[in-house]
């Protein structure tokens, strides 16, 4: 079970990012849990400067803008 966190204050882009990650995980058959982190202090703790950010098993893999769909598989794999 991969632990995925989507970092962002709750804008539309953050929502889309979470959906993209879930869709890609479903497609690849990788079980994941997604948690949205919306608290500014918590987001800042991950050391990014733009949102949405993606954290997989505690490691930041993406920051700023929507991710590329084909990158997501690599982060989850």
């Amino acid at each position, binding site marked *: 079970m991969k632990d995925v966190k989507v970092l962002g204050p709750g804008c539309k*882009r953050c929502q889309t990012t979470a959906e993209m990650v879930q869709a890609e995980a479903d497609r690849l058959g990788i079980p994941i849990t997604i948690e949205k982190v919306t608290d*500014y202090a918590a*987001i*800042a703790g991950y*050391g*990014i*400067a733009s949102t949405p950010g993606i954290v997989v098993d505690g490691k930041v*893999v993406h920051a*700023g803008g929507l991710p590329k769909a*084909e990158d997501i598989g690599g982060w989850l794999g």
Partner: protein
Amino acid sequence: MTNACSAPAPRGAPNAHTGLWVGGTVAFVAAWFFVYGLLPGFADAVVAALPLTPGSHAADAVAFFVYDTPKVLMLLTLVVFAMGIVRSFFSPEHTRALLAGRREGIGNVAAASLGIVTPFCSCSAVPLFIGFVSAGVPLGVTFSFLIAAPMVNEVALGLLFALVGWKIALTYLGFGLGVAIVAGWVIGRLHLEGWLQEWVLNVRAGAADLPVATVTVVDRIRAGIDAVKDIVGKVWMWIIVGIAAGAFIHGWAPVDLIAAIMGREAWWSVPAAVIVGIPMYSNAAGIIPVVEALLTKGAALGTVLAFMMSVIALSLPEMIILRKVLTAKLIAVFIAVVGAGILAVGWLFNALFV
């Protein structure tokens, strides 16, 4: 502040035909210039076809509207597309790495300049602010970035270029950067770190170590297209409203009145313009067609620039966002310092350019 959120990160298309994309882009730009060249003839034909007396107020207003609307939308599309491509070479994380630990002075200049090209979205202003400060970018340098990023943006520059010419666009660029550099430097000198919200000071995060993403030429072209969809898709209505207001001013506003209120003789009009501009929130798209019309009616350039900078750089929505990280005292200092800078620009301009 343009609420122009940075375009989505480029999506890769592994087996895309690079040649096709580049060829398509070249063809699009060529078509753009062809159509743009046809606009004056098109506008004349439309005005001639309408039952209007040549030289009447209504004919002036309609001619302004019919010519300027497609012209502005086309120029904006091209500028935003180009800027989308330029921005695909930058990211807030990269900018932060360039600025961390910089000395004030050089740091303020670098931050203001990077503020123009770094993708920035008002909705991520707070993460950006904390991300910068907690990673060791000095407070004043962070402010230089935060002042320049919304004030000197491609929508403002593109529209100024389209409507009032490259000289004024370059002047706005230069003075906008100047205000951001000096205001950030002054805030840095005041050593107000203690006036941040307490929780901000407690964030102790280094910079995240992000995997390197490969960005292809096709990705960059797509970033340009995404920027156009995102920004032009959002501001086109404002532009039309702004041009309609401008057309009205063109047709009917009396020259004497505008020259008396906003002319060079009225020294008080610069501070008045700054104060009126603070609560007003329009993006550059709505305000610039009005600015252009006011200029042709005898308003002084410095007064108009001050008004524009105040509307764009000192906006209430941004204050409300920043209130989460800054104390009210620090926001007051921010408004005072930036407002003073804009005031100086307005007066300087009115004094220097006759």
